[in-house]
């Protein structure tokens, strides 16, 4: 036998062996799918509890990966169980609660991280910081009373980390203060007096100030 013939034979043998191996894997997958289909059909037959439990789990896992998910997590262990429906029901419910718990846990961790980040951005309530805070919040309130939209939107709302909701609440509160609006219309210099009163109150009790103290200071 020539060396070239031996090489050709070897290559063909390797290719043939590869093909045989691929065919075997495909056949196993088909068998698992069939087993899964049969198991699902049998366990769900006349058993609304299993159907509902499957629907619950489906909502969390999604349609596309459902079969591969339950196969991966061992639903086929139920195929040899004497009470397949009970085993499958138990499997679905276990998986559902496990997933739900994981999701909630993840959410809590994310929220804590966000709060932690906010905490890190807060400043220390030193005398100087509180004084600046009171001065700027007095400017801010004055801007709201005089409807100075540019300063509110560009300067103060970001400076005081005011959400849209916070802003709406503050504006509504100031809008309701009819008496101050009457005084400002009558005498614009009363704004300076209001500002001084606001500063005095803020400095004596900054935590009670209406401008977002809790989100600014530690």
């Amino acid at each position: 036998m020539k060396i070239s013939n031996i090489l050709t034979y070897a290559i063909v043998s390797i290719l043939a062996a590869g093909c045989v191996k691929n065919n075997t894997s495909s056949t196993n997958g088909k068998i698992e799918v069939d087993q899964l289909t049969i198991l699902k059909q049998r366990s769900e037959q006349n058993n609304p509890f299993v159907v509902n439990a499957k629907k619950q789990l489906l909502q969390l896992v999604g349609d596309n990966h459902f079969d591969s998910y339950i196969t991966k997590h061992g639903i086929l262990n139920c195929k040899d169980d004497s009470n397949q429906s009970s085993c499958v029901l138990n499997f679905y419910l276990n998986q559902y609660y496990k997933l739900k718990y994981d999701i909630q846990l993840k959410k809590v961790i994310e929220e804590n991280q966000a709060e932690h980040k906010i905490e890190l951005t807060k400043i220390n309530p030193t005398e100087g910081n509180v004084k600046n805070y009171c001065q700027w919040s007095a400017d801010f309130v004055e801007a709201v009373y005089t409807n100075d939209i540019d300063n509110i939107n560009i300067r103060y709302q970001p400076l005081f980390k005011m959400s849209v909701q916070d802003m709406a609440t503050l504006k509504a509160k100031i809008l309701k203060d009819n008496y101050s609006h009457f005084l400002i219309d009558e005498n614009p210099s009363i704004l300076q007096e209001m500002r001084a009163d606001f500063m005095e109150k803020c400095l004596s009790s900054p935590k009670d100030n209406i401008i977002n103290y809790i989100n600014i200071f530690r």
Partner: protein
Amino acid sequence: MSNLFPISRFSKTLTYKIACIASLSCLSFSSWAFTFNDVVTKAEKLSKKAYVQPSKNIPSELSSLQFADYQKIYFKHDKAYWNDRKSRFKLEFYHEGMYFDVPVKINEIVNNQVNEIKFDPDYFDLSSVHLENLDTKKLGFAGFKVHYPINNPTKTDDEIFTALGGSYFRAVGKDQRYGLSARGLAIDTGEMSGEEFPRFKEYWIERPEPNQKHLVIYALLDSQSVTGAYKITLVPSIDTTVTVEAKVFFRNSVKKLGIAPLTSMFLYGPNQPSPLLNYRPAMHDSNGLSIVTKNEWIWRPLNNPKRLSFSSYSLENPKAFGLIQRDKGFDDYQDLDDHYELRPSVWVEILNDWQKGRVELVEIPTADETNDNIVTFWVPEKQYKAGDVLDVKYRLHYSLNEQQRYPKNEARAETTRLSLGDIKQANLIRKLDGSNAYVIDFVGPNLSEQKPVKIISSINNGSIVSCDSQYNSVTKGWRVIVRFNVEDNKKPTDIRLQLASATTGEILSETWSGQFPAQ
């Protein structure tokens, strides 16, 4: 049940009628409140009756008092009205005396009820003028004053408003002293026929709530030619404001009506120095008339002329005018008693349409500072006659910060100085050239050394010899020196100046409208 009682048709009708009247009266009682309209009704009714000259009611001991003695009549502070309440406001009253010889009726409005505040001799201490034994039971109040904690929240006896004599009233803001006076109305001021002085004959003052920061005063005006209903809203603060809403009814035609009159004093200042040597550089409650039109700010420095002087600025729908105390530092006055630097400027902000008319300035010669020799007011073009009605609304601002009202693109003539004109000779010695000169320093955020200016000028009754500008590095503004010759010195000479950009021609300043008085 009603069938058990024999009720005739008549008694049924009567019952219904009584019930209707009772419910109507309850309804009207519950909704009744004393308002401006009540004063309007009184003024209108009064205008249809013949004018009755008020009669003087004070004894000679009081009428013969000099001003310094009259001021010694002391209102006992512990008897101040509303002293026993938590109100920020308190009322005190003026005793009759001197030429305040006609009583005014003062009422308090409480819970929609009108209660007269009765005169009580026990309010006053007359011992300083040795009249403590004088029988004053039948007298009345000459006027009233309002106290409010304007300078210090814990100090409640700062006097902030006073109404005394004719339709005169004065107000102050924080850290201010009384300066010029306002009046309800001026009639025929400076006319040969003589001036008519309408008077507030009755007041109604709303009792304020504990936290209230404004006070409402209603007043009924009366004179030979007019009656009027006034609503005066007082808001004390850093600048105090007094909003005046008035409805005036004419009994007779009026030759010259003065709306929103302001009365002040100008004795001398750098624009017209004292003829006598005086360590005080200036003595005045105001040193200029300012007028704001749709597109121009006008500044007219005040004079103490040798002859009665009238100046007019014809306008349509004016925005504001006022008598301004532009010099604000102690150095400008050096007066430790009178502190002219603390006397407020008063702006009249016009709140309804005043249509066509003129701002008139009357300058009366005076030899001392006790005479209010400056009057300004709005004269409507319309001639009012018997049966006519006039509605006006305006707001007076009492301020030490008049510059804050100026737009950033409008430079102000901060100082005006009068001088003899001179020229610098080759040997550097300045030589008088026979002309007069005004030296005006314009200041404003729109002026700088990098932006050269030109001067727009005009004169009547004279000629401009020269008009030069020079950057003033001290004030960061531009100084204008205008040298002029007078044609007829028996007439006033009016000069107008404005700064404009030398490159674009844009107007940069208010119009300085000076008058060199007739000699």
